[in-house]
C-alpha cells in the first residue's frame, strides 16, 4: 500500500498531513481497483455480446447448422430439429436466449459443444495447458531474444551493423508465421533432425512451435524497446550519468533500460492477445492440441457454443493480463499513481 501512495508534496507538509495523504491514497487505490474490475467485466461482457450478435446475424438456421455440425451425413428429421431448438432454447425470443446464455456464462457454464457434446468449459480447461506452455515459452523466448536484439542494436556504435540490427524487427514482423514454421521444420527437423516436426511430445516438441510463435513477437518487442532505448539515451539524466564517468554498458543497462522497459511492458500486454490468436495457426501447422486447435475445429464445423466460449475465454485472459500490467506499472515508475494521474515532475501550481 505504501508503494502506491501519491508522491509527497515537494512543499513538505507536516507529518499529520502525510498520514492523511496515505489514508486518502489507500482509499483511492481501492476505488481504483474496484473500477478496474468493473471495466474488465464490461470488456468481457462486450466480447460475449458481440460474439452472440455475430452468431445471431449469421445467415442460416443455427440449429440446422448445429445439427449438421455433428457431421451426420443423413438428413436430420424435423422432430429432431424441434427437439434441438428446445434444448438450446432457440424457440425462445432472441432477447430471452441472450439473457439466459449470459446468466449461465456468468456462472462459468458456457454450454455444451454441439459437435462433441462435451461441456465447453471442460474442453477449454483441458486444452489450456499445452497452449499455456506454448504461449509462455514463446513469450519468454521473445522477451529474451527481442530484448537482446534491441540492446545490441542500440549499443553498436558503428553505423552499418547498427542499421542492420535495427532493421531486423521489421523483417521479423513481416514474415508470415506459417512460412517461418515450415522453414524451421524443414531446416531443424527434416534436414538437421534435431527437433520433432509435429505433435506435442514434451519439451522437444515445444521448441519449434515456440520459436515460430516467438519470431513476430520478438520482433515487435525489439522494435519498441530499441526505439525507447534510443529515446532514453537522449535524456538529460544520461548526460548526468556520463558526467559521473559511467561506461556505455552502464548507461544502457542501469539507466536507460529501466526507463525503456515501461513502453515495452505495455506492448507485451497487447502481445498476449496476439499470442492466443497466433496459436490457432501454429497449433494447426504443428498439429498440436490446445485452445487454437479447438478454435480452428469449432469454426470449421460452426460449433457455436465452443466459438463463443473461446471468445469469452480470450477476453478474460487479455483483460487479466492488462490489469496485471497496470498494477505493475507504478512499481516500475513511481511517478505513475494508480489513480491514473501521473505526478508530472516539477508541475507548477
Amino acid at each position, binding site marked *: 500500500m505504501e508503494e502506491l501512495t501519491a*508522491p509527497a508534496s515537494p512543499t513538505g507538509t507536516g507529518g499529520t498531513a502525510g498520514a492523511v495523504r496515505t489514508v486518502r491514497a489507500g482509499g483511492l487505490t481501492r476505488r481504483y481497483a474496484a473500477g478496474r474490475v468493473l471495466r474488465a467485466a464490461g470488456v468481457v461482457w462486450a466480447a460475449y455480446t458481440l460474439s452472440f450478435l455475430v452468431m445471431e446475424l449469421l445467415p442460416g438456421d443455427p440449429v440446422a447448422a448445429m445439427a449438421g455440425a455433428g457431421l451426420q451425413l443423413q438428413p436430420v428429421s424435423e422432430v429432431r430439429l424441434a427437439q434441438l431448438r428446445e434444448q438450446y432454447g432457440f424457440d425462445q425470443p432472441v432477447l430471452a436466449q441472450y439473457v439466459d446464455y449470459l446468466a449461465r456464462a456468468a456462472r462459468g457454464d458456457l454450454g455444451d459443444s454441439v459437435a462433441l457434446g462435451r461441456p465447453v468449459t471442460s474442453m477449454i480447461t483441458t486444452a489450456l495447458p499445452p497452449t499455456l506452455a506454448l504461449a509462455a515459452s514463446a513469450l519468454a523466448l521473445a522477451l529474451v531474444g527481442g530484448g537482446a536484439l534491441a540492446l545490441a542494436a542500440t549499443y553498436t556504435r558503428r553505423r552499418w551493423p547498427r542499421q542492420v540490427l535495427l532493421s531486423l524487427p521489421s523483417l521479423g514482423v513481416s514474415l508470415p508465421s506459417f512460412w517461418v514454421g515450415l522453414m524451421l521444420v524443414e531446416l531443424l527437423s527434416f534436414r538437421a533432425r534435431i527437433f520433432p516436426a509435429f505433435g506435442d511430445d514434451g519439451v522437444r516438441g515445444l521448441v519449434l512451435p515456440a520459436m515460430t510463435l516467438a519470431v513476430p513477437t520478438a520482433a515487435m518487442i525489439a522494435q519498441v524497446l530499441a526505439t525507447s532505448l534510443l529515446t532514453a539515451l537522449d535524456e*538529460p539524466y544520461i548526460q548526468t550519468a556520463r*558526467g559521473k*564517468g559511467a561506461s556505455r554498458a552502464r548507461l544502457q543497462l542501469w539507466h536507460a533500460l529501466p526507463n525503456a522497459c515501461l513502453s515495452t511492458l505495455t506492448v507485451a500486454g497487447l502481445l498476449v492477445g496476439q499470442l492466443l490468436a497466433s496459436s490457432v495457426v501454429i497449433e494447426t501447422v504443428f498439429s498440436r492440441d490446445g485452445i487454437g486447435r479447438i478454435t480452428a475445429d469449432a469454426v470449421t464445423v460452426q460449433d457455436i457454443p465452443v466459438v463463443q466460449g473461446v471468445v469469452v475465454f480470450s477476453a478474460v485472459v487479455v483483460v487479466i493480463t492488462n490489469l496485471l500490467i497496470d498494477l505493475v506499472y507504478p512499481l516500475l515508475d*513511481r511517478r505513475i499513481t494508480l489513480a491514473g494521474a501521473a505526478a508530472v515532475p516539477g508541475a507548477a*501550481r
Partner: protein
Amino acid sequence: MTSPDRTHPDMAHPDMAHPQPAGDLAEPAAGPARQDPVLAVRSLSVSYHTGSGPVRVVHDLDLDLSAGETLALVGESGSGKTTTAHAIAGLLPSMARIDGGSVTFGRRDLVTLPERQLRALRGRYIGVVPQDPGVALNPVRRVGPQVAEVLRIHRLAPRHDLPRLAVELLDQAGVPDPARRARQYPHELSGGLRQRVLIAIALAAQPRLLIADEPTSALDVTVQRRILDHLGRLADAAGIAILLVTHDLAVAAERADRIAVMTGGRVVETGPARDLLADPSHPYTRRLVEDAPSLAPARARPARTSPGPGPAPLLAVEHLTRHFPGEAHPAVDDVTFTIGPRETLALVGESGSGKTTTARLVTRLLAPSGGRIRLRGQDVTTARGGELRALRRHVQLVYQNPYASLDPRHTIAQVIIEPLRAYRVGTRPTRRARAAELLDRVGLPAATLDRRAAELSGGQRQRVAIARALALEPELIVFDEPVSALDVSVQAQILDLLARVQDETGVAYLFISHDLAVVSQLAHRVAVMRAGRVVETGPTGEVFTRPSHPCTQELLDAIPGARRTPRQQPPAHLEEAR
C-alpha cells in the same frame, strides 16, 4: 567535507582499493595551493556537424582556472558557453567536433585523451552540475543509489558502505532528512532539493574542478540563492575550482572571482568580477550590464504609478479558493484582489505558492472551489458555454515557455490568426493584414508571417505569443512568468514592449513572476503570495521599500546582485594569493 575514501577504514579491501590517480593528476598531498592552475584552455575551437555542413560555435577560446577560484562564463543562449563547458568535460554530443586547441587539466590534454581515460577523470576529478534539475536525475532510480553511483563507478568505497555514504553526501549537500530523501525518487523532491542532490553527485568524489552549467536558472530566486551559497561554501572549504556557466550577469557578479564574457563563440572580455562590472570595456559587456534588471537600478523606470482607482475595477477576485483532491491544503486559499483598467498587478511568490493556479482560475482554465470572479462587474465564476467563450475573448493568457506554447508546424500567420478565426473576426485578407499589424506592434517585421515558430529565437517567439494574445483586443492579459525563460537582454526588451503596449492599448495585465527585479519595472501594484494566500499587497514602490511581510523581504534579498557587496570585498584567501 570529508572524502568518503579517507574516512573509511575498509579501504584496504583489494577490490575497492583506490585506483592510483593517473600520476600527474594525483591530488596534492597538502591542501591545494590557491594559485595552482587547474585548468588551462588554449585556442579551443568546436564545431557542430549538421546536415548543412559544419558550424563553428566556439572560436579560439582561452580560459584559465586556479584551485579555489570561481570563474563565471557569462553569455546569452547561443553564445557557445554550454558547448565550451561540455567540451571541457568531454560531454559533447556526437555531432560536435573539437577542431583544435587544447584543454589542459593537471598535465594532461583532455582533447587527445582516449574516452576510457576521460571516463576515469569524469566524476572523479571533474564534477559536473547539469542545467535542469527537473530532468537531470533518472526518474526510475532512487536518489541514494544515484548519488552513490559515482563512488561505485570509480570504486571509491566498498559496496556495502554505499547507502550510508550516499546519506552522508546528501547531508553535506544540505539536503534535510537525508536518510529519507535517499530512499525517495527524484519526482518526490522539489527542484531545489533535486539540485542539491546533483551537487552531492558532483562533489561525491571530491573533484578538483566543478563545472556548473546554469545550475540554478530553473529555480526560484530564493532557492537559487541558498543553493549558490551552499555550493560556494563547499567548494571554498575543499579548494575546488568552479567553472560557473550562466546567462545571468548578476549571479556571476555575486558569485565569481573572475568573469569571462562570451558572445558569438568567443570570449570578448575577461577580468576580475568587480573591475569588469564597474568598467566594462567591450560594448557587448556594457550592454549586458545595462540590461541586467537588478544590476542597473538607475535604469529601472521609477515604479509606475497606478492609473488611480477607476469608477469600477476591471477584474475583481473575492475569496478565491481552489482545493486539489488529495492535497491537505488548498493551492489557492481565500485570495482577494482587483485589477483596474490600464493597470498591472504583479503576483509574486516562490514556486508552489499558488500563483499559476490563481492565473488558471482567473482565466477559468480551472474551476474554483470557492469565491467569486467578476469581470466588469459581471460574475464569471461559473460561466459556461457561450458566456465562457466571451470571457476568453476578453481575458487572454501568455505562457512562460514560448518554445512550448506555439505550434512548431504552424506559420506565424496561422498562429496569430487562429484566435481571429475562432471568434470569426474579419475576413481572410483583413485577418492577414491584422496579423501584420500586430507583428509590427510587437516589433517584428511583417516577413515573419510566413516563418515557422521553430525558426524563431525565444524572444521572437514570446513576441509572437504576445501578438496572438493581443489579436482579439482583450481587456486583460494574464502573463505566467513571461520572461523567465529568456536571456536578460531579451527580458528587458520584452518588458519594455509590454509597458509600451499597455500605454498604447490600455490593456490591463495580471503579471505572474517569482522575480521581483522583473516586476519592479512593470507593475503598478504587487501582491505577494505564500502557501496559497496573499500575504502582502500594495503599490510597487511601497512594497519594495517598506516590505511588511518577512516573505517579501526574503524575495527582495534573493534578487541576485542585491547582495553584491560581500563579493566586492574578495575573500581573505584570494587576497593572500594575489
